[in-house]
């Protein structure tokens, strides 16, 4: 049996009790482009896809991550593999597919209960991406997920889906699905949910410009500017609405063929090679040694 191939992390759907407020943050601070969506959703673009983030009316816990499958032929094998391993699977109905701007979707959960949607043919936009501010966003880099059951999550991601382990910091596990060091990171935690949404920017300058942009607006920078030791990417992590953490990232490396997963110590310097420390996010804070 072959693993279910993943083309890309396609979109994130985020529940929000204050959709308009979150949308304002997404455009005025993040710099994403707001595009039309249906049923009260707010869709936000960061690149050529119709949208990468969709805000929907609902509790913040109501989140899902869309992963693209190469084509429809992979739907049934994916369903069979997930069911055989005991993961819940259901088909998205026609309206759910419409709201997601995809042709077909299987809705499942990882080992921690994070909702994962396996989708086909996500909509692209004919218009080029036009940002709301000059943040230099070029796309969605990836997502950090909280894991309450790492073993079951690794089964889901690496045995059923075809993600591979790149490196580990303590038990924090970086997973890759393409040439990049990682697109998904699993952070051991006491609860499930999206820990971080990472947006790619075009240069190191953009990271630093946003650093001062955020500071001037008295927005809370949670970690960085820093450089992730395992992936080499420069990052700045900051607080979004409703406890959502966003980051701008740049310069992630592409592991060479045959690279084995490395183990880093669970220490601040393993998360930031420059020396920035994070004290406000339990998954990224460790007792001083």
């Amino acid at each position: 049996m072959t693993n279910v191939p993943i083309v890309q992390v396609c979109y994130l759907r985020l529940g929000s009790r204050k959709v308009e407020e979150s949308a304002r943050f997404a455009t005025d601070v993040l710099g994403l482009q707001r595009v039309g969506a249906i049923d009260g959703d707010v869709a936000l673009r960061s690149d050529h896809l119709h949208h990468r983030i969709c805000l929907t009316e609902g509790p913040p816990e109501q989140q899902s991550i869309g992963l693209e499958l190469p084509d429809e032929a992979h739907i049934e094998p994916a369903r069979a593999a997930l069911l055989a391993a005991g993961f819940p699977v259901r088909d998205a109905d026609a309206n759910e597919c419409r709201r997601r701007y995809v042709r077909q979707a299987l809705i499942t959960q990882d080992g921690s209960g994070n909702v994962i949607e396996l989708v086909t043919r996500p909509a692209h936009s004919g218009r080029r991406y036009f940002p709301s501010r000059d943040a230099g966003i070029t796309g969605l880099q990836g997502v950090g997920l909280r894991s309450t059951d790492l073993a079951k999550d690794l089964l889901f991601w690496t045995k059923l889906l075809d993600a591979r382990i790149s490196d580990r910091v303590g038990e924090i596990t970086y997973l890759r699905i393409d040439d990049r060091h990682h697109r998904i990171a699993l952070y051991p935690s006491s609860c499930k949910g999206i820990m971080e949404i990472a947006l790619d920017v075009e240069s190191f300058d953009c990271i630093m410009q946003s650093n001062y942009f955020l500071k001037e607006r008295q927005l809370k920078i949670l970690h960085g500017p820093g450089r992730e030791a395992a992936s080499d990417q420069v990052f700045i992590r900051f607080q979004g609405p409703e406890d959502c953490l966003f980051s701008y990232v740049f310069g992630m490396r592409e592991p060479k063929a045959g690279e084995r997963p490395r183990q880093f110590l669970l220490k601040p310097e393993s998360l930031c090679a420059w020396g920035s420390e994070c004290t406000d996010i339990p998954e990224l804070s460790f007792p001083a040694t």
Partner: protein
Amino acid sequence: MIELKEISYVRFGTPDLQMAESFATSCLGLEVGDRSKKSLYLRSDDRAHTLCYTEGNPEEQAVGFEVDSEEDLEAAAATLEALGHPVHNGTPAECAARMVKAFIGFKDPTGNSIELVVRPARSGRKFFPTRDIGITGFSHIGLYTTNPVRDEKFWTQVCNARVSDRIGDISLMRITAIHHTLAMAPGTKPRIQHVNHQVASNDDVLRSFYFLSGRNVPIVFGPGRHPTSGARFLYFTGPDGMTFEYSVGVDEIEDEETHSPRSFGFEPSSICMWGSKRVGQGIPVPAAKQ
């Protein structure tokens, strides 16, 4: 014309040599190359020293530039005397204290102490920094001027400096291909405004930012990026209130014949394209617009 070849060293008086040494080695990352009873010689590259602290008044500061030969030195002395700048010929003891073959001392029109030196000593021993700072060498200084127009004329017409860019009345001048070796900023009295060391990468600048912040060294400006030279920078305060800078990625002027200086307005974005703001005194930056 006086042909300046390279910037060689800075000399600072200090009332507390021990404090200066502690800062230079534990924060700045320089290596003690030599010491005498009243002086401390610090290395930043393959030269025998590029920074010297001598017990004394911190107002006593000097910057040394290398010229090619003793003939050039004599010619420079004659030029300067003719223009009315009294010239001091270095005694053998003074030459030994500077690790040079010969030198002359004079004041620029503002009154900054300038020394022209011949054959500054290199060291056969590899430079080994006291911390993992990535310093690649002493590179430039900022100098205050009481009359930017007059002093720019002195440095570009009596000496061989060329203006690379200007930010308001600040003049960035080069003597090699490197964007600037001398940054001249308006001030009220002669003084060295900052001392720059180059580091190898962005990472070094940011690592030092966290390193120095962790040791409560006042960060006065940055991390930032100059739109003029393209350099990523960090300014912080050292002994006796002196501002030090680390930077990386200073452009080189490749079209020496055709380069014409650009003018940037005297506003924050001309000094930092990332949006960092100066804290306290040290770097003359315009106040942020309200």
